[in-house]
């Protein structure tokens, strides 16, 4: 909230607010990343890296599904944690082009726990953490795949009409875009 009178006097309330929020985020992430790295130790599907050293709120996630339609593909995700974390969920973008009912070709992801304003129990809540996000993203290639509530309508329709065509298009995309 911006208070105009204080702004005129040169008091930037927003900056003070953001400083506090960032401080909270850093403290939460320090603990969460520690847990997450422990859980991902020896995990062959998910690999988490930090592109800039010392910056915890920008992560790079690599998922290599070992089962299902997407086996053999290598999928890269960019995770950015906003300053208002954990009142708001992390922002995730898929960097690899994929033929998937819940990920569109621009990299937008439809995953319930990443939804900020959700009316059901599956959306984001401050009790969730980064480990849930990473596992949620990994499951998107296996059991969380949802053809009934699709983001990529065409992919979902193709699956419903002809499963073989869908599967071959997925393999085609893996061959073209998801090999490294």
């Amino acid at each position: 909230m911006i208070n105009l009178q204080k702004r005129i006097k040169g008091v930037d309330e927003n900056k003070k607010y953001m400083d506090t929020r960032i401080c909270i985020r850093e403290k939460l992430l320090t603990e969460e990343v520690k847990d997450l790295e422990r859980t991902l130790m020896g995990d062959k599907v998910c690999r988490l890296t930090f592109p800039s050293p010392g910056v915890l709120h920008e992560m790079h996630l690599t998922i290599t599904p070992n089962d299902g339609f997407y086996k053999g593909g290598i999928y890269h995700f960019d995770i950015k944690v906003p300053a208002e974390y954990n009142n708001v969920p992390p922002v995730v973008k898929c960097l690899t082009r994929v033929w998937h009912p819940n990920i569109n070709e621009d990299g937008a992801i439809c995953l319930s726990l990443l939804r900020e304003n959700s009316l059901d129990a599956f959306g984001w809540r401050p009790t969730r953490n980064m480990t849930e996000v990473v596992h949620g993203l990994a499951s998107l290639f296996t059991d969380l795949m949802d053809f009934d509530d699709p983001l990529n309508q065409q992919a979902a329709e193709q699956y419903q009409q002809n499963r073989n065509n869908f599967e071959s298009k997925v393999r085609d995309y893996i061959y073209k875009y998801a090999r490294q």
Partner: protein
Amino acid sequence: MEVDQSIDEKKSDYRPFSLKRWNACAVWTWDVECDTCAICRLQLMEECLRCQADATKGPERDPPPPVVTKAGRVTRVANNHLIINETPSPPPPSSTPSSTSSSMAATAGSSSTSPSASGECVVVWGDCSHSFHNCCMAQWVKQNARCPLCQQDWAVARVGK
């Protein structure tokens, strides 16, 4: 429990046994489901993450008065403040060093009982019996008026320590 074996059967108030000694045992727990705030993941008895973040930055802008929490322990802020207080104040010319330190302690003791704004990080209980820091919950309720743990509609049952 020891049972009295020597029963006088001739007495009119006949008792098969009488209780000579007993030891009572009691167990107690806090009336909360868990003692950590699920939002900021800190102990409910401590201040929330937000208040702690504000407190660490606070002294540079305006130093808060010494704080004694309701549990009676002196917080870090209070300790810092005591150190700040002791250095600049010159000792009274007539007094000896030992009497100076005792008068300082008296001053610190009296001022530390005064309430302060940073001691107001309280706990809130919902009707669902889940508890959080009031500050943490106030932030979340603005977004979604349901308990983050059980998804029931959030209604405050009690606020306090």
